[in-house]
């Protein structure tokens, strides 16, 4: 019941991939390294478009993640989350919370201390790196985030 079908898994993977792409493109390196010169990738050097696209992708991804969280909680399946699952939960929480703080910071009525903004920015860069490594490790050792009777 809690498992995702292939289409959902594919959509999730595409979203994560595009979020990584638009996330890296927040740094001014895509033009420097000719990536924006590739046909169809000119938009990666448009900082405003990239930023807005990142927001749109993040909205869809957060919807999917919280939809799954809602299903896990409502079905009383939290006890089936493995320790590996909890590591991923913490890392995803880190990405989402720092992302939301960044969104809040960009509203005119919110103000965060510059040092805090700096740490939020750095953490928002660091969490995906760590999550990527953990996900690779999980793939390699066939780790699941939910134990039976559900599959992930």
């Amino acid at each position, binding site marked *: 019941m809690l498992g995702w079908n292939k289409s959902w898994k594919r959509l999730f993977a595409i979203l994560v991939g595009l979020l990584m792409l638009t996330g890296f493109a927040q740094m001014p390196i895509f033009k420097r390294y000719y990536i924006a010169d590739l046909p169809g990738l000119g938009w990666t050097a448009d900082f405003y478009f990239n930023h807005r696209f990142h927001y749109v992708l993040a909205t869809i991804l957060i919807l999917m993640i919280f939809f799954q969280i*809602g299903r896990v909680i409502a079905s009383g399946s939290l006890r089936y989350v493995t320790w590996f699952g909890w590591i991923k939960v913490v890392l995803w929480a880190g990405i989402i919370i720092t992302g939301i703080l960044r969104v809040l910071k960009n509203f005119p009525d919110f103000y965060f201390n510059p040092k805090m903004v*700096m740490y939020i920015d750095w953490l928002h860069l660091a969490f995906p790196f760590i999550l990527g490594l953990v996900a690779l490790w999980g793939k390699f050792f066939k780790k699941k985030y939910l134990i039976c009777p559900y599959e992930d």
Partner: protein
Amino acid sequence: MLSRRSFLQGVLASSAGLMLPGTVEAYDRGEVLATLLDLSKCVGCGECVSACKEVNKSKFPVPKKPFPKMYPSRVKVADWSDKQDVDDRLTPYNWLFIQTATGTWQGKEFEINIPRRCLHCLVPPCANLCPWGACLKQKNGIVRINADICLGGSKCKSVCPWHIPERQTGVGLYLKLLPSYAGNGVMYKCDRCYDKIAQGKVPACIEVCPEGVQIIGPRDEIIAKAHELAKKMNGYIYGEYENGGTNTIYVSPVPFEVLNKCIEKGPGKPHLDKVPYSMDKEEYLGQAVLTAPVVGLLAGVLTVLSKFKKDEGEN
């Protein structure tokens, strides 16, 4: 011992006329401060430019040479260290310059001098889009670049509607990371003398102006003052709504569309065009991001509950 308030009040007295009453209290409350420039008074003497250079000398870059070889070759170095005296445009060593507009309006010839520097936007895209937290906004409305961590990627310049920040290669954190492959120096621009303001003093450009072109004060009062002045001189305002509002308000007897046509524009020489709010779409999309967790969670819970209900019904 002198209390902070007494100190500030003393400074206020010495800066009488340059600071609106209530500025110190507004600063203490963490309110946004803005500057008002009466362009009808500016004679283009350049005292403000010299004072800016003098006061901020210690913040100017001291690059290490030779510069690291940059890869790929399309990455160009930006070196102003041998041209530190340039004062007719913005550079890493010149954060303020005088732009002169000469022309005819309503049958009369005019010459308007415009001190140009960072406008310190209310919602600054340079600070909001900096991926590294190097470009920052202070609570008092100052937008500045932390030279200790800036990597000189120049994104702040690209996203600034006036392309204000200027880069100096061969200085900053990038030299300690991957100097040839990432970063290219540090970006520099007006920091509205944040350190002087923190001591209750006025920025250097305001302090030395012999014509009293500029004043500083709480933004609401500066805006009110700007409207009063514009009404009195039958003039025009720039900076109140540009890019969603800035903390630098110009008042001119000649419309800014006319001035914009009469000034020299180009690298380091910003325009005076109308500027729409650049972060407006982020505000709408940001609402969606903030709503997504609640909507997703509710949808997930309801999906399970409705399935349970359906299963119960079938049993």
